[in-house]
C-alpha cells in the first residue's frame, strides 16, 4: 500500500509542477472555448444550444494534450523498466498513474467548466449538468487515452498519432456526455439514460484501459 501512495503522490506532484502543470490544460480549455464564438458567431441563443458540446469538445482536446507524456518520460529514464522488474502489477501502476494524471489535469478542467460555461450562456441547470457529466466522463477519457499512450510509448513524437488513435474510441463518451448534458435542460430528451450509459462507459474503461495499456507497456520494453 505504501508504494501505491508514494507513486500517486510522486505522479501527482510531477503532473502539477512539470511543463506548466495543471494550469496549462485549463488555459488550453479556455482558449478552445473562447475560439468557438469567433467561429460560429456571438449569438447567445445558439451558444446556449451548443454550449455543452463546446465544453465537452474542449475538455476532450485538453485531455488529449498531455497524454503523450503519460508513460513516455518513464520509459526514457528507465522508471518503466524498474516498475516491471520490481514485480509490481503493471495494471495497478497504470491505474494509479492515470488517477494522479486525472487529479492533476482532468479535475482542474471539471472545476473550470462552470466558469467557462458562463461564456457560452448556459443556464444554472445546464451548468450543473455539464459539470456533472464532465466529472463522470473525464476519467474515461484519461483511461481510454492511456491505451493510446501505451501503444505509442516507443514513438519519439507520437502525440498526433495518439490523438488519431484515441478520438474514435472516445466518441461514445462524447456522445453520451453531451446527450446527458443537453437533455438536462430539454423537455423531451431523457436525461437519466445517457447519464447511466456514460457511467457504464467510465466503469468499463476502468477495466479495459489499465489492462490494455499495461499489456502494451510490457511489450514496449527493450
Amino acid at each position: 500500500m505504501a508504494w501505491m501512495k508514494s507513486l500517486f503522490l510522486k505522479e501527482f506532484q510531477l503532473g502539477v509542477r512539470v511543463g506548466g502543470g495543471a494550469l496549462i490544460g485549463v488555459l488550453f480549455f479556455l482558449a478552445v472555448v473562447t475560439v468557438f464564438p469567433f467561429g460560429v458567431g456571438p449569438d447567445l441563443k445558439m451558444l446556449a444550444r451548443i454550449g455543452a458540446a463546446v465544453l465537452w469538445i474542449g475538455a476532450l482536446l485538453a485531455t488529449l494534450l498531455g497524454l503523450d507524456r503519460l508513460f513516455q518520460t518513464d520509459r526514457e529514464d528507465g522508471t518503466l523498466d524498474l516498475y516491471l522488474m520490481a514485480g509490481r502489477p503493471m495494471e495497478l501502476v497504470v491505474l494509479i498513474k492515470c488517477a494522479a494524471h486525472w487529479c492533476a489535469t482532468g479535475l482542474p478542467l471539471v472545476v473550470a467548466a462552470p466558469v467557462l460555461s458562463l461564456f457560452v450562456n448556459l443556464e444554472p441547470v445546464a451548468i450543473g449538468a455539464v459539470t456533472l457529466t464532465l466529472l463522470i466522463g473525464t476519467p474515461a477519457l484519461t483511461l481510454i487515452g492511456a491505451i493510446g499512450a501505451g501503444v505509442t510509448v516507443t514513438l519519439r513524437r507520437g502525440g498526433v498519432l495518439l490523438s488519431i488513435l484515441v478520438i474514435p474510441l472516445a466518441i461514445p463518451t462524447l456522445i453520451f456526455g453531451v446527450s446527458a448534458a443537453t437533455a438536462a435542460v430539454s423537455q423531451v430528451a431523457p436525461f437519466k439514460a445517457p447519464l447511466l450509459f456514460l457511467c457504464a462507459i467510465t466503469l468499463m474503461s476502468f477495466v479495459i484501459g489499465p489492462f490494455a495499456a499495461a499489456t502494451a507497456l510490457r511489450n514496449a520494453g527493450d
Partner: protein
Amino acid sequence: MTLFDLANPTRFLSLVQRVLPWLVGATLIAFALGLYMAFFTAPQDYQMGNTVRIMYVHVPAAWLAMFCYSMMAASSIGTLVWKHPLADVSAKAAAPIGAAFAFLALFTGSVWGKPMWGTWWEWDARLTSVLILFIMYLGIIALWQTVEDPIKAGKANAVLTLVGAINLPIIKFSVDWWNTLHQPASVFKADGPAITTSILVPLLMMALAYTLLLMTLHFMAMRNEIYRRRIRAMRMRSASAAPAVNKLAGVQEAN
C-alpha cells in the same frame, strides 16, 4: 495440417504458391458471374430504379470491411496469446485491405446517396459507423508505419486492434443513439422492399466474389510482408557485419 504447422514462413509460402492460382481463378469467375447477375439479370427496384445496382458493390464492401476487422482481431489474439509468428503478418496485411473495403463502402454509399437522399453525405448511423471504422483502420496503418521494429509494432497493434474490437459495438450503439436523437426521420427507409431471391442471389454471389478477393489479396499481402521482413533481416545482418565496424573504429582511431 493445423494452424501451427503454418508457423513456419517457408511452409506457408509454399502453400500460398500452390493455392494462389486457384484463388485468383475462382475470384475472377465469381466476379464475372456476380457482376453479370448484378447488372443484367437482377431486376430494377420499383422505387430506386437502376441505382439499386450500386447495392451489389456497396453492401458486400461494407460486410467485408467489418469481416476484415474481425480477422485482424483474431490475428491479434494469435499475436498476444500464442505469439504465432504469422499472426502479426496476417494482421498487418489485413489492415490496408480492410481500409480499402471501408473506403469503397463509403465511396459507393456516397454515390448512391446523391440520387437517393439528394446529398453526397448524410450523417446516417451506418455511414457514420463505417466512417469511424475507416478512421480506425487508417490509425492502425499509421501505427504499423511509424513503429520501426516489426515485433514491437505487432504487439502494439494487437492491443489497439483488440481494444477497437471491444469498442466497435459500443461505437455502433452510441452512433445509433446519437442518430435517432438528431434525425428521427430518414429519407431512405431500410425496411422498404423486402429482399426477394432475384436480388438476394446476385448479392450473395457478389459477397462470395468479394470474400475470395479478400482472401487472394490477403495471401498476396502476407507473402509480400514475409519477403519484406526477410529483406530487412538481411540488410541488418549485412549492416552489422564485421568489416564495416572495424573500418569505423579504424577511422575513429586515426582521428
